[in-house]
């Protein structure tokens, strides 16, 4: 057989995967040795600098890429996930602008599909997952007063899994959307426009491996490594949110990883999901078993951050610690049971549709517990409208809107109407922009003195960033919701003229959002030129006082 480009890419993707897993095996063996043979000293030596992890200050710096302590790993994830956020964000703004006219203005359908896929995958796997892992690595050691960190090399390897996974996603230029449904995904051809989806699948596999290992490490930190002075009943709520997230990842991501491997195998020898044995739906089920939990993975840590930050800016304590914990854990349990609401129109049958509809309604309960807890906290406190607080208040409002639209579309009848329209896109952008992205930025601003080594951000620029992000979210998603309810289809490069006013309004929103993020960068550069002026204490480190 002569040289074929497809084969070369396929081969190298598979080799990257194999090398990565060998690496993982090597590190796991290393750790096993340490467990079995008590080679504690050796490893201690290796991570001597980590000795007083919780007091360590780590700034945003590229040196973090060469250091293996948890905080440096956190910095690595934060920097890299920001990169993926900007890549995916530009793709999103590009799609929006191209939709200015009913006939695509500058994107061909194939280019549109590439941007759609890259936007969805990089936002969810690169930005949402990455920023959460980063904040987890960065904050947990301080919150739990962890003295030393013995798995630095494993964390480091996992970071590179995540990084290479993101790069594979970018280079795949897949057009299969973030679902990677069969048979679209298994077209080893450029006829559909660079559908090297298996590279994207390999990327997803690597990122999910990193997320799984990180989850285990987080659980280990929280339950085994934390300082004895922190009792379980006094565990910070952010740590509880990470417990919830980690368990959610561990219980559902492997299902999707298995499905991804089956897809890659099907490429060579189609046996699993071929339409002829009727299991194309099988892939969809395996995918959504993880596809729903990942959206909760993207919000639950944001809930935890709100619980940590809200009392600080409202000068009070969390209204009810217990109901906070219960809410976070219930969210984990319930959101594992609702995945079928993405398949109402795929023929699971009325019986299952109704079951999934009911469980979806039930998710509103822990969500409401959480939101009311925040409102009660706000009620009893004195609110200081700092920049992180603005992000928090906006996140709560956006989550309520997103949640209500979610519960609406979980009604089987209404879902018939809005499935596949921009209503769904509006539903999740409210939450993913307002809550996930908003809280990541809130945390970055709150930690700014620590991250920048004692500098202040420019408040005017930060407020401009906030207002443009918040305004842009509404201007983009409200027209989506309105148009979507009238049947404006999502995932199309062009559309019927009657929807133009909605699409144009949303395009303006997209541009506002883009400008807002640029202001964040300007602020970063601007503040770095200012002299060191504040203490670089980590404000999330100090002990939190909870009510009850």
């Amino acid at each position, binding site marked *: *057989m*002569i040289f074929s480009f*497809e084969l070369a890419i396929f081969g190298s993707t598979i080799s990257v995967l194999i090398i990565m897993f060998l690496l993982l095996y090597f590190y796991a063996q290393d750790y096993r040795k340490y467990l079995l043979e008590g080679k504690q000293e050796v490893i201690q030596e290796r991570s001597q600098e980590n000795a007083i992890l919780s007091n360590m200050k780590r*700034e*945003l*710096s*590229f040196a973090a890429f060469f250091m293996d302590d948890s905080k440096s790993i956190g910095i690595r994830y934060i*920097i890299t996930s*920001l*990169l993926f956020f*900007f*890549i995916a*964000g*530009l*793709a999103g703004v*590009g799609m929006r602008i191209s939709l200015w006219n009913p006939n695509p203005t500058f*994107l*061909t359908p*194939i*280019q549109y599909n*590439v*941007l759609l896929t*890259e936007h969805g995958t990089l936002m969810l796997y690169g930005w949402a997952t990455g920023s959460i892992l980063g904040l987890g690595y960065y904050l947990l050691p301080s919150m739990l007063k962890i003295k030393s960190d013995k798995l630095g090399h494993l964390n480091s390897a996992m970071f590179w899994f995540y990084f290479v996974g993101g790069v594979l996603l*970018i280079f795949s*230029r897949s057009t299969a959307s973030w679902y990677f449904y069969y*048979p679209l995904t*298994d*077209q*080893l*051809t*450029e*006829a*559909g*426009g*660079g559908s090297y989806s298996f590279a994207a699948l390999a990327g997803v596999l690597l990122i999910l491996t990193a997320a799984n290992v990180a989850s285990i490490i987080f659980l280990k930190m929280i339950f085994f490594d934390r300082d004895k002075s922190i009792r379980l009943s006094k565990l910070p709520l952010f740590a509880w949110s990470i417990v919830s997230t980690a368990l959610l990842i561990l219980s559902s991501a492997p299902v999707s990883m298995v499905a991804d491997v089956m897809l890659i195998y099907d490429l060579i020898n*189609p046996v699993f999901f*071929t*339409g*002829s*044995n009727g299991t194309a739906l099988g892939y969809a089920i395996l995918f959504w078993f993880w596809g729903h939990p990942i959206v909760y993975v993207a919000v639950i840590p944001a809930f935890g951050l709100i619980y940590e930050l809200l009392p600080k800016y409202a000068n009070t304590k969390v209204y009810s610690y217990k109901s906070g914990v219960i809410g976070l854990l219930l969210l984990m349990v319930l959101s594992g049971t609702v995945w079928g609401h993405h398949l109402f129109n795929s023929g699971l049958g009325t019986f299952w549709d109704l079951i999934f509809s009911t469980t979806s309604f039930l998710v509103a309960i822990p969500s409401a517990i959480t939101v009311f807890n925040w409102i009660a906290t706000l009620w009893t406190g004195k609110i200081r409208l700092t920049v992180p607080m603005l992000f928090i208040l906006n996140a709560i409002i956006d989550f309520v809107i997103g949640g209500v639209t979610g519960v609406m579309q979980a009604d089987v009848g209404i879902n018939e109407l809005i499935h596949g329209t921009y209503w769904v896109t509006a539903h999740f952008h409210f939450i993913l922009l307002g809550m996930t992205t908003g809280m990541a930025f809130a945390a970055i601003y709150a930690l700014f003195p620590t*991250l*920048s*080594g004692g*500098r202040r951000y420019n408040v005017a620029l930060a407020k401009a960033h906030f207002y443009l992000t918040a305004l842009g979210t509404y201007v983009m998603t409200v027209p989506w919701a309105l148009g979507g309810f009238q049947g404006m289809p999502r995932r199309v490069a062009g559309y019927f003229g009657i929807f133009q006013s909605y699409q144009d309004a949303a395009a303006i929103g997209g541009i506002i959002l883009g400008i807002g993020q640029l202001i964040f*960068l*300007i602020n*970063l*550069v601007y*503040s*770095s*030129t200012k002299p060191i002026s504040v203490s670089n204490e980590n404000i999330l480190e100090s002990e939190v006082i909870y009510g009850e």
Partner: protein
Amino acid sequence: MSRITAISLALILILGAGLSFYFFLSVPQGIGAQGVSASYNSTELIVLYANAQGWNYNSSHPNPTIYAKTHVLLEFKVIEQDNLPHTLTINPGNSENQNSAIVSVNIPPITGTVVWVNWSFGQPGTYTYWCIVHPETMVGLLIINSSTNQTASVVPNSIQGYQLSNLSIGNIYGAKFET
């Protein structure tokens, strides 16, 4: 965070986004219907089984040379045979050339799927029909003569269809498998 860190971080984020955007847009465009089908006054059926080992691989004439006339609507009935992705791609000339293709249609990798590709040629000449995914094996010639010439067209009778013994699911898709 030194000034250099902040500036290089901002530059990396902006350049990363810009370069990736450029890379995304430079995706191969595939090939759609670039040509225009000519007018026609009669139609002719051509059956092709898409099989990675060759078009109509199970017949006595794999990769048949197809003769047809100008201004006849050729109705290619392309039947997926092996669960692998294929395309029916046609370009002028007697060798494969993706850039000058006038027709290129994906055949979904689900056995039994039938894809109809209709095309009428205005210019006589030699054309190549092939599959982009399997250019080594699935390639044949399509010779178009102007209407005055007398030519015979192959197919569909000469095709020995799919061997049912290979097919575990029967022909539930309504495809006809002649043996």
